[in-house]
């Protein structure tokens, strides 16, 4: 298939791996930010082909995983209301809140629907004028443009029955949190290609300079990933700490200006609780006051919920690259994709789910 097969060619991947083996002189810890990259690495078996000296740790870039428990509980409370059609990306349905997931809400009579795009949720609102349509607007910078477009479209259409439950988070503050931690082990980053498609990569330049870490913008196919790793290792071996772009077919330094403009028009920066990590200042987006009428948290009075994590789950440490899924006592025992204790076991981007699904338990 065009644009995919070229980046999955075994001989090219092998060539870069060969080059990598020649270059590595000592152990390095590299974090891939994005959960999509984690899955691609394990699905293609890339982790087994890397030189042993290179340890990949998995980053916090799984929107489903880091969405806070309070917000998931809130989503379930809103979804259970009889007047509400609750629209969500499919991944979110299986994420456990304190007690249940959105599938359970649906089974109990809640009208929960999977949509492929927030614009489908806007269409639902148009088609169901007597119902309240709420879209669960989660994600990193990647999903923000489409999510804000749905709000702009709802306003243009004069819809009074559309709102969004926003849980947006941003990559750079999470990198600061990881690098600023006294336990940090990460020496280089593969930045998430799709996030950079929207935001560019100039935001990472101060991070590379401040912490002395190389950051390489990386795609998702095997060839993209080995190339990103090679450039990171080249920098580490030569003592450089720069931002490089290994995903130039999609990413420019400045990113997508039009997308950034609409994000800035609708969203403003706020503090966010990251599931498993805690509160990170100025790490997310919420609706600007001018768009408060589309804020589901304001439209529906949801009581303060007391949310509790499973004491067994170490998702937070996994998301910070401190521990790996196999280090968890619950992994594969009490915690499986069928009965997840934490979000990292749920999402198609969660590190635990990737390890479990592709057999990396042992």
């Amino acid at each position: 298939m065009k644009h995919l097969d070229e980046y999955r060619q075994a001989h090219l991947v092998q060539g870069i791996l060969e080059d990598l083996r020649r270059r590595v002189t000592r152990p390095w810890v590299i974090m891939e930010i994005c959960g999509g990259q984690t899955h691609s690495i394990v699905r293609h078996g890339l982790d087994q082909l890397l030189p042993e000296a290179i340890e990949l740790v998995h980053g916090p870039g799984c929107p489903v995983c880091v969405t806070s428990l309070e917000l998931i509980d809130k989503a379930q409370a809103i979804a259970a209301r009889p007047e509400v059609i609750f629209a969500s990306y499919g991944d979110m349905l299986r994420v456990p809140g304190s007690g249940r997931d959105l599938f359970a809400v649906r089974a109990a009579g809640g009208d929960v629907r999977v949509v492929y795009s927030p614009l489908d949720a806007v269409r639902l609102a148009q088609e169901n004028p007597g119902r309240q349509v709420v879209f669960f607007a989660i994600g990193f910078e990647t999903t923000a443009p489409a999510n804000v477009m749905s709000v702009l479209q709802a306003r243009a259409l004069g819809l009074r029955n559309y709102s969004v439950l926003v849980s947006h988070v941003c990559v750079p503050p999470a990198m600061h949190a990881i690098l600023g931690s006294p336990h940090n082990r990460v020496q280089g980053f593969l930045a998430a290609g799709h996030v950079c498609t929207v935001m560019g990569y100039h935001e990472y330049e101060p991070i590379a300079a401040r912490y002395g870490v190389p950051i390489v913008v990386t795609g998702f196919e095997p060839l993209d990933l080995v190339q990103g790793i090679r450039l990171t290792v080249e920098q580490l071996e030569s003592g450089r700490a720069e931002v490089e772009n290994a995903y130039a077919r999609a990413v420019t330094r400045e990113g997508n200006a039009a997308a950034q403009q609409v994000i800035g028009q609708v969203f403003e920066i706020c503090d966010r609780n990251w599931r498993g990590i805690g509160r990170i200042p100025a790490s997310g987006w919420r609706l600007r006051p001018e768009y408060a009428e589309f804020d589901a948290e304001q439209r529906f009075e949801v009581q303060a919920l007391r949310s509790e994590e499973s004491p067994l789950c170490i998702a937070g440490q996994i998301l910070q690259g401190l521990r790996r899924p196999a280090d968890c006592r619950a992994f594969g025992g009490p915690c499986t994709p069928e009965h997840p204790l934490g979000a990292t076991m749920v999402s198609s981007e969660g590190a635990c789910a990737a390890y479990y699904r592709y057999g990396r338990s042992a």
Partner: protein
Amino acid sequence: MKRDEAIPVMEGAVCPVPLAHDVTVVMGHGSGGRMTHDLVQRRFQRVLGNPALEQGDDAAVLRLPQAAGRLAITTDAHIVAPLFFPGGDIGRLAVCGTVNDLAVMGAHPLWLTASFILEEGLPLATLDRVIESMRVAAEEAGVAIVAGDTKVAERGKADGLFISTAGVGWVPEGREASGRLARPGDAVLVSGPLGDHGIAVLEARGGLGLASDIVSDVAPIHGLVEALFEACRQVHVLRDPTRGGLATTLNEIARQSSVGIELDESAIPVRPAVQSACELLGMDPLYVANEGRLVAIIAAAEAEAALQALRRTRYGEGAVRIGRVLADPAGRVLMRTAIGGTRLVDMLAGEMLPRIC
């Protein structure tokens, strides 16, 4: 004379002749009375007619082709939205699904029964299309629909039309195919590209916005099975990888036979349009449903003959070898990835969900 206004005026004969109700299904179609009788006679028996069905008794009484051999019996329920999709419909699905379950046991499919749950308000023209489609599929598969039943559910209590089928087949002496019989060294074959049905139905539901021409593979595969038994002596396992896809089917076999199965990623056939749709949605074609594919595990020495025999059949033109059976790890399916790594191919956990980004 002043008329007493309390007494209604008789304005001629207005005997209330019942409406014919020949446009949509109404509750009366499930009453068991004349309407039910008419529905069965005019719509089912007229199209699907065969001596057993036309007897109109409480059960079909049938004679086996030979005294020797064994019977295979299966049952299947069918729910699909939408009822019609590119390449098929719920009627064709119901017939082929049941025929294929019999065929993969090495049986000659002979007879089917079908129960219909009709939702009040279903257009009868829709029902007619489904029945006609079942007739065509049954004819292609060489089976007779020998008994049936209809019930009507109130509006909102059934999604248009549900079909539940049962099938009976006859297994000739000497044929033994079972999920327990895979042996280390065997070859794993599949009869054509994977995932067509699941993606075609998803696309027909609308909302994907893909301008694709993906058509469901729903088809009877008994012809492929017959070709295999003619060409090979050591047919060990046959399966149709329906819900849960190839990955789930192979996991079941690996567990039943206590063997490992190793797949070669670059050999697995997937159409580019299906691959594209899966990449966009974050799905894996290994887990997407098929309704007209055959998975065969056969002694390696006979693999080439088996492939040639399959490729000569209708629906088997795309047959390829995709992997092999190992002694270890028992109960597991592994994949040699295209770039040379190895990974586990697990069963699907719950519903397959499109990912966020």
